[in-house]
């Protein structure tokens, strides 16, 4: 059973989607190690200093040995988590690409995949990021983590589904009337942006640190989306999971 008039090669489709997600995730995790980790170390250093100042921990050799082991563990997880999250988001990207490929502009799969990656980056990452930007450790109360997660995920989901609905509307419109759906999405996302509650937590960390972290975070996430579109486009061109079937009569 398939969505469409006949089915593509399922195995090849799944394999190239998963490989492209995992490879892009590897790029993402690796970029984070170089670009984001210094900010995380600095932020956690502030947390440690707060622990010493409040008397909750002592500035001893034992503390630092335990800390180094703990941080090594977290840093090693950066690559693994990058591959897992990259594969996860890549799976969503693969579904959307397969379903929308014929509607995407361009006659090359790399171009189509990059355009879709750009659209998804904008709707499910960049707009939510502007509303709820990434924060380093030291920012965020444990009591509000569930609320913040619900707000962030809701914003992503509403923005993504909103884009999908207005895309469907644009397909029903002809010529210049398509602009109506674009204006509709802009109005919709603006209402959502200003209507959704703000992040309830106060940012007490130095703003140089917070802004530097946010810029690097946005840079590596954007790198991931470019890599994802590029790799899936290349693999799709090479393996052609929906390749044309030739028959002779």
């Amino acid at each position: 059973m398939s969505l469409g008039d006949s089915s593509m090669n399922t195995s090849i489709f799944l394999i190239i989607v998963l490989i492209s997600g995992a490879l892009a995730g590897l790029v993402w995790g690796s970029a984070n190690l170089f670009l984001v980790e210094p900010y995380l170390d600095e932020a956690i250093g502030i947390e440690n200093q707060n622990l010493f100042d409040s008397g909750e921990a002592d500035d001893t050799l034992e503390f630092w040995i335990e800390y180094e082991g703990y941080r090594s563990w977290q840093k090693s997880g950066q690559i693994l988590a990058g591959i897992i999250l990259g594969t996860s988001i890549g799976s969503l990207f693969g579904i959307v690409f397969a379903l929308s490929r014929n509607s995407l502009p361009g006659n090359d799969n790399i171009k189509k995949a990059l355009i879709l990656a750009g659209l998804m980056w904008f709707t499910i990452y960049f707009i939510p990021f502007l509303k709820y930007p990434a924060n380093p450790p030291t920012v965020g109360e444990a009591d509000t983590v569930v609320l913040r997660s619900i707000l962030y995920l809701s914003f992503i989901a509403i923005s993504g589904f909103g884009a999908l609905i207005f895309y469907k509307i644009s397909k029903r419109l002809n010529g210049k009337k398509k602009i109506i759906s674009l204006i509709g999405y802009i109005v919709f996302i603006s209402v959502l942006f200003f209507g959704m509650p703000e992040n309830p937590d106060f940012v007490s960390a130095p703003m140089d640190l917070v802004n530097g972290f946010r810029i690097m975070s946005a840079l590596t996430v954007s790198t991931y989306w470019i890599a994802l579109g590029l790799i899936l486009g290349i693999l799709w061109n090479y393996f052609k999971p929906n390749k044309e079937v030739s028959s002779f009569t």
Partner: protein
Amino acid sequence: MSQSRQINRSKRGVPIIAIVALALIFAGGLFLVAFDQGHIFSIAYGEQAFEDLFIHELTHDMRHAAGFPCH
């Protein structure tokens, strides 16, 4: 005289099973990296998993870098 005619047919359909499999991978991976606070390991280790936060600590740095609320 017989004529041979080639027909090219594009296999455009997306298998439902592939969509379901990818949707499950998407949801599972997202929960694992972005939201787990001991829930997955609590299946095997019970309440202790919420204290240890094994997966949370392993994915901690990516969770921050990807913009998800962490703590």
